[in-house]
């Protein structure tokens, strides 16, 4: 840890001040309530930077206000000719030197954290048996949805990232069509998903999402990617390691023992949907549409609509109305009748990972 | 200084290209313009180097196979020589020898034309091989860099041709001296750019 950052008292004081001034936002999405080491480091940097900047602002405002009150022509008289001062070397040096010192105080931790947060060496690490030591998730951003593959576990999901708490999770990020950006504000800063190269970084999730308002953290696309950029949300469920392991096991089982809540619905699905959507959680990324193996567990329809059958059916009937520019076709009554749609919705809502 | 003044070699100023305020402005302005052009070509070079040999999977062109140095060497010689002849022309501009200046500029233009024709031949050869503009990122970057230079050569040719014919009857004065002079600056500039293209694109492409 850097020495300058050990002044915790100053920090906590500033923190109280900042939070008092600011309001903290919503816990599931605010950078003011960091829920992991990365976001926490960034928050510390924010407090340090804000502190220095507040100091600068205060100094400027004091000089400014005093000057404004003391040197008014209305006080000095219309004919007053002030002394035409050329400048002052001492002052010039002073206000060159002090900002440099202030910036150095900020620059050193900046460089430190840049390297710390950019360190992904452990990504490749394997134990004696050749198994990866750390959880790696491959994220593929596609026009308005997110695909999450766990290459070492052989499973894939979409729209809802499930991760274990209290360990570093490493991410491989890429975009399949246009550039997007992967951002979970309360857990850590963003990293772009480029089209031509894989970006790597890590996050650590130090708070279970269970107690949150919706039971999930919010994730966002942070790079303009077309009409529905604003709706390209995803959710993050953080579980203790043992629950995570059982979730993984459940996902792996979906390949052999699929849940069928409505047999008619399954029939409709296999006729109209299966070309793009898989219901087995075992697989790799690269699907046409989001994997639906755990659809019933999810928090939103299409990433942002309330998770109920009505919205699901509305969505299938007219996808463009909800998410303009997305690539899923809409299904009219000729293609899927109202009855079939009811069955399909029930079937989809029943797709849950056994626990 | 009046632009209509008639000069003799004795009264002709030592620096006719910046003898009036208008001329001085053009002179400085053109240098600045060339500064901007340098950045323009630098951007093209950087892009070319980033996209060199990059194409869709399985595309079959590399700099080693594509370029043939002998042809490019001849082109280089033509352009370098034309730079030299334009220096002769400027020498005659300063000594107020209009006929000889026109002659050397004519030779410059012919050499430039030769260069351009060889470049057209080179490009058409590549196109026949299938290395079209749309073939790959590599081809797009190649044609844009070398083609932008070729376009500059073509503009220079039109420019000097118009100057030569426009002024053939009325000789040299302070009004058109700057025009001739800035042309020669321009011509040197595209010559220098070509030296870089020869090195970065062709030599480094074949050897590197």
């Amino acid at each position, binding site marked *: 840890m850097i020495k300058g950052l050990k002044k915790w008292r100053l920090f906590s004081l500033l923190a109280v001040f900042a939070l008092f001034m600011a309001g903290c936002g919503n816990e599931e999405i605010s950078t003011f309530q960091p829920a992991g080491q990365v976001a926490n480091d960034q928050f510390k940097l924010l407090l340090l930077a804000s502190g220095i900047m507040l100091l600068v602002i205060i100094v400027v405002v004091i000089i400014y206000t005093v000057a404004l009150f003391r*040197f008014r022509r209305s006080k000095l008289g219309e004919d007053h000719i002030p002394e035409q001062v050329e400048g002052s070397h001492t002052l010039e040096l002073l206000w060159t030197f002090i900002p440099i010192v202030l910036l150095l105080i900020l620059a050193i931790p900046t460089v430190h954290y840049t390297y710390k947060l950019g360190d992904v060496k452990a990504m490749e690490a394997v134990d004696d048996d050749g198994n990866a030591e750390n959880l790696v998730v491959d994220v593929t951003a596609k026009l308005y949805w997110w695909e999450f593959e766990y290459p070492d576990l052989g499973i894939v999901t979409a729209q809802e990232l499930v991760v274990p708490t209290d360990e570093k999770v490493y991410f491989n990020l890429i975009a399949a069509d246009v550039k997007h950006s992967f951002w979970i504000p309360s857990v850590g800063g963003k990293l772009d998903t480029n089209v031509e190269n894989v970006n790597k970084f890590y996050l650590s999730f130090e708070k279970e999402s269970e107690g949150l308002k919706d039971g999930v953290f919010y994730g966002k696309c942070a790079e303009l990617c077309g009409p529905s950029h604003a709706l390209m949300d995803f959710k993050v469920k953080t579980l203790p390691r043992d629950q995570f392991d059982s979730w993984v096991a459940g996902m792996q089982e979906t390949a052999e023992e699929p849940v069928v809540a409505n047999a008619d619905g399954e029939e409709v699905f296999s006729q109209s949907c299966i070309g793009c959507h898989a219901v087995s959680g075992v697989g790799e990324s690269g699907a046409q549409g989001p994997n639906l193996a755990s659809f019933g567990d999810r928090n939103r329809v299409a990433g942002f609509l309330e998770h109920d059958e009505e919205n699901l059916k509305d969505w299938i009937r007219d996808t463009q109305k909800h998410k303009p520019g997305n690539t899923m076709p809409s299904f009219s009554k000729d293609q899927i009748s109202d009855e079939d749609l009811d069955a399909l919705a029930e079937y989809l809502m029943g797709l849950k990972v056994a626990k | 200084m009046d632009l209509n003044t008639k000069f003799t070699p004795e009264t002709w100023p030592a620096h006719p290209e910046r003898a009036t305020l208008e001329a001085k402005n053009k002179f400085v302005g053109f240098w600045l313009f060339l500064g901007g052009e340098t950045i323009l070509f630098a951007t093209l070079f950087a892009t070319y180097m980033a996209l060199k040999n990059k194409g869709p999977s399985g595309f079959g062109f590399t700099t080693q196979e594509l370029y043939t140095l002998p042809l490019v060497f001849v082109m280089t010689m033509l352009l370098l020589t034309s730079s030299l002849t334009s220096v002769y022309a400027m020498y005659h501009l300063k000594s107020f020898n209009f006929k000889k200046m026109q002659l050397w500029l004519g030779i410059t233009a012919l050499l430039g034309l030769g260069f351009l024709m060889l470049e057209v031949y080179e490009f058409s050869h590549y196109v026949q091989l299938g290395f079209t503009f749309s073939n790959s990122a590599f081809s*797009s970057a190649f044609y844009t860099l070398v083609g932008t230079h070729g376009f500059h050569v073509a503009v220079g040719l039109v420019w000097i041709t118009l100057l030569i014919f426009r002024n053939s009857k009325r000789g040299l004065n302070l009004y058109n001296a700057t025009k001739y002079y800035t042309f020669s600056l321009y011509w040197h500039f595209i010559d220098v750019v070509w030296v870089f293209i020869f090195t970065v694109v062709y030599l480094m492409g074949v050897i590197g």
Partner: protein
Amino acid sequence: MSSVAQKSGFGATLWDWLTTVDHKKIGILYLLGGLFFFVLGGIEAMIIRLQLITPNNDLVSAGLFNDLITMHGTTMIFLAAMPMLFGFMNAIMPLQIGARDVAFPFINSLGFWMFAFGGLFLNISWLFGEVPDAGWTSYASLSLHSPGHGIDFYAIGLQIAGGGTLMAGINFLVTIINMRAPGMTYMRMPLFTWTTFVASAMILFAFPPLTIGLFFLTFDRMFGGNFFDHTMGGNTIIWEHIFWIFGHPEVYILILPAFGIFSEVFSVFARKRLFGYTAMVFATVLIGFLGFMVWAHHMFTVGLGPTANAIFAVATMAIAVPTGVKIFNWLLTIWGGSIKVTTPMLYALGFIPSFVMGGVTGVMQGAAPLDYQLHDSYFIVAHFHYVIVGGVVLAIFAGLHYWWPKMFGTMLNELLGKITFVFFFVGFHLTFLIQHWLGFWGMPRRVWTFMDGQGWNLANFVSTIGALSMAIGFTVMVINIIMTTIKNERVGNDPWGDGRTLEWAIPSPPPFYNFPATPLVRGLDTLWIEKMEGSKEMITPAEPITDIHMPHGSIIPMLMTLGLFIAGFGAMFHQETSWGLGVLIFGLAFTFVTMAIRSLKDDLGYYVTKEQILQDQENIKRGRN
């Protein structure tokens, strides 16, 4: 020949403005053109804010929203802020250095028409219903993916306008290098001239990359190029680098002239010499230089690696030092002065706290790891509006009130000016201050709408109310301009009474030849020196009055640009129509022919004789009494 033998009538006036090469008239054209686009961009901004007033609003569709943000950004930067600053540079800078005109009057006119037609081309996209929609940054993967001709309008429109900007930049540089009056050394130039000089140098080096980037985009979209298509070996990150190598200097190109305007305003209305002039000049040059070293701080989240991020983070922070020097020098200029709070001064005083806010948030974003959170959130929206509205727009409004009498010969109403300021200034802070927090609370920028229940509702509502207040302020200003123009009360040389620089030594508006005799400059704040010495004429001439050489007006600049404008449509439609290619070739040929006419036909200008000048000066004097 304005005052010597002027024809009257609407047609003649129109022809005069279409063909003018007088820097003062071109300045006015730039200003009016910029104001027009400012109104357009402002309307776009209002619709954006109204859409975001409540969650799940559907005032505009998602696609239209992206059109609006793209056009708002592009319009405000390229077609409003820059042209208005160019207006001041054109109208005032030659006067400040005691010149009769700019170095290249013809190219000056060409630059204006390229801006005008480029802006027109860009905005015609609204009529086609295919509008640029990939943001003003037009990142390559999205801009290639975008259907229709929207991005084509962006690429070609900006290409034309950008060419004009480059010409203007070279023109100002040469003017300042070659045409300063006797005694006007570099270190005696007013700060506005200095900042014009540095900004022009930055234009010269920053715009060629934009030109190239736009060509790549044009080629990729319209001519089968593959620069950015990664399936063909291309690379979209190249666009990001090229764009920001241009884009970062661009923001300094905007802010430096703004600094110049405020430097003038502070010292005039504090009746005091600018504190630390030398340091101010040095800081300007340093900012200009560093401006080219920091482009990748817009790309911290692109994945350039920790080393690149660390280097660019530290370089970015370094810019805060010269900027801080400037702030403190302004503070010390008013310290010990005699402050008169006129409308321009009010804007200058409002600028200091606003810009400091924008500056410090800039440093915060310079801290790369922190920027991972702030980048592309509403924090950045707040930051750049704080520097661009709090810096550039306030400067433009200050300059508008400050130089209006010099450009038009009549004063804007002070009371209305102050009302404008209050509405605009309060609205500005109301709109953008809260957006910093929206960013902290996780709201990404460029979102068409937002869901309820994320804690963003109130802040967005407040922000929209602030925007309405800004709109009211601006409307008052337009009313002010109209009323002032109708009343048309003429003013003398130095209506503010405290002018320090040469432009205040000559009539408002100045005669078309500016100075009957080139002035002799004996120090910084030339006019102030003359005033303090009690000189009656306010100018010490450097030479006796002689004949003045003036350039002819010309319609060719407009025609040349018209050719490019036509060619633009040809390029855009050549793939889907049979006539496209023909139109493209015709347009380019038209431009070439007009250019050749210009080049082949000698234009030696004309002379205003000594007698005419003396007569004219006599008339001015008589008119004043």
